């Protein structure tokens, strides 16, 4: 179901993935039990497919990586954090329509 352009994160590949290779990485903190997270999943798939080369989309299941979620002060999901060269540059809390997400990303990609 999920786009093949979406990277699944774990504690093992998190640091490497957010360091990126020049392009920014949008990490979606989500969980199975979160309705709004499910609602934005197809939107993130679309963005991943449409923005190949300009932004990478990655997903971190907070059940699998609670420490990473805590490290970035995630207190509500979905939370999306945009990383550039490994540093968080933008944090979005809550599900939003695609246009709103793209609007928030625009200055970085």
């Amino acid at each position, binding site marked *: 179901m999920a786009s093949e352009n979406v990277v699944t994160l774990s504690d093992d590949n998190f640091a490497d993935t957010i360091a990126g290779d020049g392009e920014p990485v949008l990490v979606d903190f989500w969980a199975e039990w*979160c309705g709004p997270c499910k609602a934005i999943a197809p939107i993130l798939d679309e963005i991943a497919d449409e923005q190949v080369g300009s932004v990478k989309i990655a997903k971190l299941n907070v059940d699998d990586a609670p420490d990473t979620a805590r490290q970035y002060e995630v207190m509500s999901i979905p939370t999306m954090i945009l990383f550039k060269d490994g540093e968080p540059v933008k944090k979005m809390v809550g599900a939003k329509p695609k246009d709103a997400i793209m609007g928030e990303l625009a200055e970085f990609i």
Partner: protein
Amino acid sequence: MADQTVHDVVIIGSGPAGLTAAIYTARANLNPLVLEGEPSSTSDQPGGQLMLTTEVENFPGFPEGIMGPELMMNFRAQAIRFGAEVQTVKASKVDLSERPFKIWVGDTEAEPTHLAKTVIVSTGAQSIMLGLDREVELIGHGVSTCATCDGFFFRDQEIAVVGGGDSALEEANFLSRFASKVYIVVRRDELRASKIMQDRANANPKIEFLWNTSVVEYVGDKKLESVKVRNNLDESISDLAVTGLFIAIGHKPNTSLFEGQLDMKDNGYLLAQPGRTATNIEGVFASGDVQDDYYRQAITAAGSGCQAALEAERWLEANEEGH
């Protein structure tokens, strides 16, 4: 893009009411168009309030219960199976003053996006907030209206739920899985919640009620560190050291689109004819929580969605000849 076809039925909203109306009108070959709303973390989103719940135990047909989001995905799939068209957009304006009815998505100055012979309004209701200073900026940083979205992040912390109804007690019970302590802040000295929910809360060792108490201020810079509460009997103010505050003080109907067009009750809920879904405008039907300030259940919303579908179908049959 403006779409010049005149739809038989446009359904605004996609909770149990809207999607039941979609199932029925699709099966009647009326090709309903459902404007399901846009993703958000409030209950004003595709699927409605059940998207923010976990286990639904009282929807008939699921003896072991079902997850709210899964139930709504099933409703949606069932509507689509019979030919309903579901668009993930939010209606931005309606004009119900003449036929065909006009509905806009996005730019309200442009040509109407859709034209419709009948409209079923099932936009539901959303949580009321406390309205305190800095509330909006603290949402997602300690202040929450969605226990299921956020509870996980308060493991071993002390938190509070505001409200005295079923949803407040349900949230408190759910949150007690994670939190070390859950205060329930109740304005008066009694609860509106049902007996079964009260019994569960009373039996839960992590839950403590704070009676005759209101939250009056949020404390904390970037995230919530505590709240100030007022004792409503002696007006004294004290600090309650909680890192999470979950607000469950009730709902308000999503009716701003219809102000000045559809008749409403004093509390803002749409006014339908007694026992019916017909509104003051012929061909416009109201179903689900947007017109229900009494039952507010998934099953009653679904039932009224069915009523709206049948009324729309009959209205079209009776009025088709003149077109």
